[in-house]
Every structure is written in structure tokens, then in C-alpha cells.
């Protein structure tokens, strides 16, 4: 029985851990994660590497939403960004020249302000959770760019020469759109690589939350687009999705907000459906490798550091 198996494996892991604890300090240090600063081959990546990869993305999301919600960075509200359990010692966040406080979005739609508050809180919790889970192995927050990155993305996507996601309700939602579907694909890709059942459970649970966020953002954007057909909101999401699909090299794993003809329980595609869900032909959410995710957040089809992470991610997956 699989539940039995899970319990057995947990026990195995416990006894394995205890044995390792009894090893000499040197031997143990050699086994522990996070001590190697050298790049590791893909074949030796561990759960901690994948969780640290996720932590980098959560730093990015938490900073974006916290700035949008309150005009503060996460370290300003007491969330640790340093290596291990250190509160300080992390990278810096580049924001627009008028400063962090000016990033608080001038919301005019109360519901959108509420959504920003909720998502900010949840992404902060993800940072805290992953840092707590990783303990001494947690990587510090890398340098994050929330200014030049959006401008460059807008130019690359063909949206315009500049884009300030902190300037309005819709701009904020479009900025969110850039992140959330990527989070889904990143956790989806990592799920099959995690070795410890508890880590897999946690990652799956965070994956679901990112999908909730994506579903929320996409539903609100689609509603606004349909109510304001001249604003080109859905068209912008398509451009963002196309850019992501181009950066990750597939050109076919990202679906913007639009309509699609579906057949339902008939033989002809006579029904016009929305595309709130970003998924493949089987309606299974897309999955991305860490390299594909890096290409997107670096805004580089070759994976060169840049974009939202001008100095790259911290950790062994960068």
C-alpha cells in the first residue's frame, strides 16, 4: 500500500539521517548542502537545490507584491533575506527612480487592492516557509530588478518602450500575470525531481497556490478586458505569453487570454470558450525545466543572467 510505503520511506529517511548525524563533522559537512559554491552538474542536484531555486523565485514575487501593496520591500517588514537564518545580507532591489514608496499601486478598484494584499501575504509566507525549511542552507535574496526588467520585457514583447507595473490596477495585474504562470510551470517541473515525500507535498501545495493566484489574476484581467474592449488588455497578455514561450525555446507552451473554439460533447467546435486556464491540449498545466524558467526570468533565450535577476540566482541552479 502506497501510504505504507510512504511511512516506511519516512522511517528509512529518519534512520538514515540519524546515522549521518553520527558521522564525523568533516564527513557530514561534505554531505550537507549549500556548502559548495561550485556549479553542480544536473545529475547531483538535490532537494535543497530545487527548494533554493524556488526560494529565489519567491523572493522575486514577494518583493513585487509587497512593493505593490505597501510600498515597502520584504526586509522592511521583517522578512529575512540573508543567507541561512540571517535576516540581513541579501541583495538589493532596483525599483523605479522615485523610490520604493512610490511603488505602492494607486488602486482604484477595491477588489484588486484586496487581491494584491492577499497575494503579497501569501508570497511572503512562501519565502518564510522555504527559508525555514532550508534552515542554514537557505540562500540569500539575490539582486532583483523590478524596473529595467519590466521596461525591457515590454520592449521585447512589443508592448511599448516602457512598462510600470506599479502605475495602475491593470498595470499591476499585468505585472502579476508575468510571474504567476511561470511559478506554476516552475513548481510543476520541480515536482517530479524532489526526492523527499514531504518536500514533494509542500511543493505541490505551493504549486496549487501559484495556480490559484494565476487563475485569480487571469479571471480578473479577462473580466476587465471584456468590459473595456478598447483597452487591449487581453492582447497584452498574449504578447507576454508569446514572449515567455519564445524565451523558453518552445514557442508553444503559454496561452494568453483569448477565446478558443471547443467541441464539448459534440463533433464540431461550435462553442466559444475563454482561456482562463493556461494548459496544454489535454488541459494539463504546462511544465518547465529550471533552464527554461531561468531563460524567462533572465529575459534571455540563452540563459544569460539579467532581467529580473541582474546578478543571477543564488544557489546551485543559476
Amino acid at each position: 500500500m502506497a501510504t505504507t510505503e510512504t511511512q516506511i520511506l519516512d522511517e528509512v529517511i529518519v534512520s538514515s539521517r540519524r546515522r549521518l548525524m553520527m558521522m564525523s563533522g568533516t564527513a557530514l559537512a561534505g554531505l550537507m548542502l549549500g556548502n559548495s559554491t561550485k556549479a553542480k552538474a544536473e545529475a547531483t542536484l538535490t532537494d535543497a537545490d530545487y527548494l533554493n531555486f524556488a526560494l529565489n523565485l519567491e523572493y522575486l514575487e514577494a518583493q513585487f507584491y509587497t512593493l505593490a501593496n505597501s510600498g515597502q520591500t520584504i526586509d522592511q517588514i521583517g522578512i529575512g533575506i540573508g543567507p541561512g537564518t540571517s535576516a540581513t545580507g541579501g541583495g538589493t532591489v532596483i525599483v523605479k527612480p522615485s523610490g520604493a514608496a512610490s511603488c505602492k499601486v494607486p488602486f482604484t478598484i477595491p477588489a484588486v487592492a484586496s487581491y494584491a494584499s492577499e497575494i503579497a501575504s501569501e508570497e511572503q509566507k512562501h519565502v518564510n516557509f522555504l527559508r525555514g525549511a532550508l534552515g542554514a542552507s537557505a540562500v540569500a535574496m539575490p539582486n532583483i530588478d523590478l524596473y529595467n526588467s519590466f521596461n525591457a520585457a515590454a520592449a521585447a514583447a512589443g508592448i511599448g518602450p516602457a512598462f510600470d507595473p506599479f502605475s495602475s490596477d491593470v498595470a499591476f495585474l499585468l505585472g502579476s500575470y508575468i510571474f504567476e504562470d511561470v511559478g506554476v510551470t516552475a513548481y510543476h517541473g520541480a515536482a517530479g525531481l524532489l526526492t523527499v515525500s514531504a518536500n514533494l507535498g509542500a511543493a505541490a501545495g505551493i504549486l496549487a497556490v501559484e495556480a490559484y493566484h494565476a487563475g485569480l489574476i487571469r479571471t480578473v484581467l479577462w473580466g476587465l478586458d471584456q468590459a473595456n474592449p478598447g483597452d487591449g488588455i487581453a492582447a497584452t497578455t498574449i504578447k507576454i505569453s508569446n514572449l515567455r514561450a519564445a524565451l523558453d525555446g518552445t514557442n508553444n507552451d503559454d496561452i494568453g487570454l483569448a477565446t478558443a473554439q471547443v467541441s464539448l460533447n459534440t463533433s464540431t467546435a461550435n462553442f466559444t470558450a475563454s482561456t482562463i486556464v493556461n494548459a496544454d491540449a489535454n488541459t494539463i498545466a504546462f511544465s518547465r525545466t529550471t533552464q527554461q524558467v531561468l531563460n524567462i526570468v533572465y529575459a534571455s533565450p540563452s540563459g544569460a543572467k539579467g532581467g529580473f535577476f541582474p546578478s543571477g540566482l543564488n544557489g546551485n541552479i543559476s
Partner: protein
Amino acid sequence: MAVLQRTPDVTEQAVQTDGLLRIPITERGTLVRNVDELIRRALTRRNFLVGAGSAAALAAVGCSKTFQPATTPLAPTTTLTDVDYLNFALNLEYLEASYYLIAATGSGLEAADAGNGAGTVTGGAMVPFTSKIQQEYAYEIAQDELNHVRFLRSALGSAAVSAPAIDLENSFNAAASAAGIGSSFNPFASFDAFLVGAFVFEDVGVTAYHGAATLLTSSTNLGAAAGIMAVEAYHAAEIRTLILQAGSTYVGYANQISALRATLGGGNETSLSLTSVVACDPTNAIAYARTTSEVLSIVYATSVGGATSGGFFPAGLNGNINSTTP
């Protein structure tokens, strides 16, 4: 997206690469003596990475808060396989697909999608949509859930169970009564009512797939299940957002349903509000997971142990997972 292997391959894979599943282990002494072998199997269980790095992962992450050693006694050696969990999921997809297809078009699954000897569907009618966008939402989710049915049936091949009997009328009335909404509730009466009916299912789907994720042994199956779970979460967020837009009456209904699900399904609920669209634990913002028994309690609408039918499934689920914990 890689397509799941058909059943014989899944079974073969389980036997060949996952011998642990097939070995009935009834004594902890045996387990401890074979610890190294079991670790090896654990590390290859999902095409896992091998070598010192993985051992280190166990060491380091084992020290972390994500790790929780099992304290419950070993269960009897009834062997549930990936096929059983996927068939469990298929039953839930039949329910969702039937609900959305009937709401969208007035008719449910075609025979080819329901399987040989499929059960009958009671109740349901096309929703009187009043705008194009309402129809677009309904059509999309209906197609999504139909695709899930087709995907799982294809993946399971000849091992796929047929659709069980499904009740979309008495079930909703009973749920409304149990939740304190009223003596009856027709989710097909209006678009807003349809949203509340959808609310009954979507968050449950997320918790069911989340609970199953750590039980699946094949990496391919895990990947597919995680991807379907994500889609259910997209749906859940969409429905929760639209219910907020529908207004306080419907938010109230949804939260009465949520409270009922919490009673039946081991808690695992987040009340819907403008600042809690996402259903997740309030400490870590991680979505809830439910056991198959907790899911069955909700869809059978009963807190009785050992229940094998009721609620949306008047003749029970088809397959090996069909009973709440005795």
C-alpha cells in the same frame, strides 16, 4: 506533455523500478535490516537522481521543518497502485465533466467518454446564461474537465473504470439542507447558482490531487497529476473570484458549503472573502491536501465510517478506492 503509459506499461514499470511497492513488509525488523536497499529504492522510485547528492538531500532536508517522521502504525498490506489512484481521480472527473457539460449544453458525457455500462446521471439542465462571457467560462471548464476524463481514460487504457451513477439533483438538495442553505438548491437555475455548484467541486479537486501526489509511484503519473491539480486550482480561483463578483448572497452560500466540507473533509477549508480567494493553510500559504477517505466523505456527503456510496455517487465510486475509512 508526455502522455501517460497505458496500463500494462505502468504496471510493468511499477514492478521493475518500484519493487518496494510489491513487497509486503509486515515487520519493522525487516525494514531496518534492509535500510540501505530501501534507500536505494526510494531514490530511484521516481526516476530520482542517484548518488551522494541525493543522500545529502535526505540528510539536509531531513533536518528541516518540511520533514515530518511518520508516527502512525503501519497499515495492512492492501496494495493500492497508481492505477487505483488514477481511477479514483477519474471518478471525480466524471462527476465534474457531467456537471459542467450538462450546465453548458444540457447533455452530459457521450457514451464513448463514459465507458461501457456507465451509470445513469440524475438531474441537471442547461443553465440559462445571460451573457457571452458567462457561456465562455462554462464552455471552457466543461471542455477542460472533459479533456481530463479523456486523458485519464486514455492513460489507464483497459484498466479505466466506467462512469459510475451520478446524482446532480438530490445531492445538491441534501447538501443545501446539510449546509443550512435551505431545503433545496438547483445549481442549474442561474449562472450565479451554477458558480456555487462549481464551488462544491473545485477546491475538493485540488485537495484530492494534492493528497494523491505523494502516493503516486511513477514520475510520469506524478507529473500529470500535478498538472491536473494546477488546472483544478485555476478553476477554483476562477470560480471563487466570480462568486465574489456575484455578491454577498452567493458568497454566503459558498461559505456554508465550505463549512460543510470542513465538517466532512477534515477541515482543510479557507472561507471565501475578498482577502482570501486562495484556499490554503494560513501559516505557510500551502494548499490543503486530503486523504481519499476525506474526499469520499465529501462527495458521499456522509461522516459515516465505511461508507461506500451516497451524495453525488448514489452507487459509489467505481474502482478499488470507494470506501471511507471504517
